[in-house]
């Protein structure tokens, strides 16, 4: 297990390093001045530009340019936005918090609803409820997220008025963003209206979370159903039945852990899918996360912000994938046997 963990972590580091190389190359390939793309400082800025040239080792070889770029990246100096002139890194961190808040909630929601529903559908295989669950999940899966989001907005926000149309929180509450996650920010603040603010934040939150979770939720239902059906046919389950164990005990103690093994393996993949959807959802709901800032920076040709956002999202996806793989190997011992024996 230790050797496997070290191998995974090394792979993570190497992939992250390759990402920085890619970013460096992209800075050169993007139109415009390379240094401006990298640091966000324009030629017209005069002295600042000349200083930046020194800092980024511009006159020297590509190798030392890359080294300076890499050091800046490590120190959290990701340049400044071409539009707002604010530091990219300082801006991205609260955005990351906002994105993570949406992601974690959507993922939790789809796990909490999807896994039991999939298991239920498998137990009732070919029954009426199985058909309903599978039919609804297939149709929900085939609806594109951007369309579903707009339909949901039209219905719940415009027609019914159950949710605000956009944003994270009513600005009247005047909560200063610290972590970016609106719930944590409210709890951290000492505003006298914390309760009301929390209620408002939840009203803003539920609709994007629901729309965002539609894809992983429907996928999880299908994955869980297949995994459970597979486990239900296994010999050890028949043996457990023949020993007279109760059905509920069999489901909780034998079916669920074995089905979860398949589901956990899929979670990393689902997370990557979620990340590509979140860009659209954040833009539609005007959620101040990385996704909406990424789209905005693309429109504004704001290269430092664009690459900073890309790097953060890519690093997040990599981290989650490695974490899922490590958990999978740690929790399910026969996976480790396969790792070491089948090489």
């Amino acid at each position: 297990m230790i050797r496997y963990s070290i191998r995974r972590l090394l792979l993570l580091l190497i992939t992250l390093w390759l990402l920085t190389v890619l970013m460096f190359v992209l800075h050169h390939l993007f139109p415009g001045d390379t240094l401006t793309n990298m640091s966000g400082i324009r030629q017209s800025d005069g002295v600042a530009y000349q200083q930046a040239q020194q800092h980024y080792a511009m006159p020297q070889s590509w190798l030392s340019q890359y080294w300076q770029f890499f050091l800046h990246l490590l120190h959290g100096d990701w340049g400044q936005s071409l539009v707002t002139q604010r530091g990219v890194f300082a801006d991205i961190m609260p955005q990351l918090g906002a994105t993570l808040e949406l992601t974690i909630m959507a993922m939790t929601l789809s796990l909490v609803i999807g896994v039991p529903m999939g298991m239920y559908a498998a137990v009732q295989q070919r029954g009426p409820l199985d058909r309903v669950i599978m039919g609804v999940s297939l149709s929900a899966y085939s609806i594109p997220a951007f369309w579903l989001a707009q339909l949901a907005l039209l219905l719940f926000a415009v027609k019914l008025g159950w949710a605000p149309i956009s944003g994270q929180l009513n600005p009247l509450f005047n909560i200063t963003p610290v972590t970016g996650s609106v719930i944590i920010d409210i709890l951290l603040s000492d505003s006298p209206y914390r309760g009301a603010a929390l209620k408002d934040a939840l009203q803003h939150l539920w609709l994007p979370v629901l729309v965002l979770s539609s894809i992983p939720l429907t996928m999880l239902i299908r994955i869980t159903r297949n995994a459970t059906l597979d486990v239900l046919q296994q010999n050890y389950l028949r043996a457990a039945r023949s020993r007279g164990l109760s059905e509920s005990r069999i489901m909780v103690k034998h079916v669920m852990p074995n089905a979860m093994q398949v589901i956990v393996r899929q979670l990393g993949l689902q997370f990557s899918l979620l990340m590509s959807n979140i860009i659209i959802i954040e833009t539609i709901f005007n959620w101040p996360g990385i996704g909406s800032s990424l789209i905005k920076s693309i429109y504004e040709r704001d290269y430092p912000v664009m690459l900073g956002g890309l790097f953060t999202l890519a690093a997040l996806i990599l981290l989650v994938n490695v974490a899922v793989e490590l958990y999978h190997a740690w929790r399910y011992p026969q996976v480790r046997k396969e790792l070491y024996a089948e090489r």
Partner: protein
Amino acid sequence: MNILDIRNLTIEIDGDNGPIRLVDKLSLQIAEGEIHTLVGESGSGKSLLAKAILGFINPRWRVTADRLWWRHYDLLALNPEQRRVVTGRDMAMIFQNPGSYLDPNASIGAQLQECIPSGDLKGLYLRRRADRKTRAERLLHRVGIKDHDAVMQAYPFELSDGVAQKVSIAMAIAHNPKLLIADEPTTAMEPQTRSQIYRLLSKLNASQGMSVLMITQDLTAIMPETKRISMVYCGQLMEVGTPQQLLEQPLHPYTEAMLSMSLANHNTPVKTRLPTLGGSIPTMANLPIGCRLGPRCQHARRACIDTPRLRKLKQHQFACHYPLIEVKNYD
């Protein structure tokens, strides 16, 4: 006293041309404390019979019987839930590839402790847990596993087949079943492990009066303590008798063919053909009518297109129109 009494058990599935009888009017009686061996080739329906007794029934099978009694329970009259309670309490089964019958994601200790009935435990929560653990260790000792700690912590994939089979026997005897059904438990194992497991089963049989229904392919590798043997071919019962009766004077041509085929009886000269039963086992879709051995039987005559009745000569039963020796006083 027979604890298991099966008369004319039939299992049918639907085929393209009407129903297919996988098991055709099979009868089986097991007395209390008896070791009964069921011998048959693969596909003869012996595992199906075991599954029908335990109630692992696929919804597509039609199981009918004149009588399927376990002690004083009519198993066919019970609903599935009641039946599972009865069979779960009184019967247990072990299988050919024990590894696949253990949950791969739970430690052996957890699975073994789960099998111990809660009613046997004493005391409150913590004491019950400790009691459960010591009982599990004792079970492992009883099946001949000495380093219980290592085995309890292991996962199924870490065990060898022999140890896994011992563990599954330990799980099977955790609630002191009256009947243990062993479905080819040693087929994939080396002779040494096989004799260990046979010794273990016969010890359990002697010490607790546990009946054993042993299912095997090889007539010559039966447990020495076997009281009676049933020969099955293609879902039909061919012959039932004590090992002595069957091995010394078989009455059914199938038993004789099985005996002459087994390598233990050979003293044929070099480079001669080994005796085999001509033809092959018919497929499910093309089962012969009457005695299903008919097309392969050297003694078959016209009468064999009618299924022979099971006839009795003292304790020796056979289903053949033309038994190998002249039999007069049967009924």
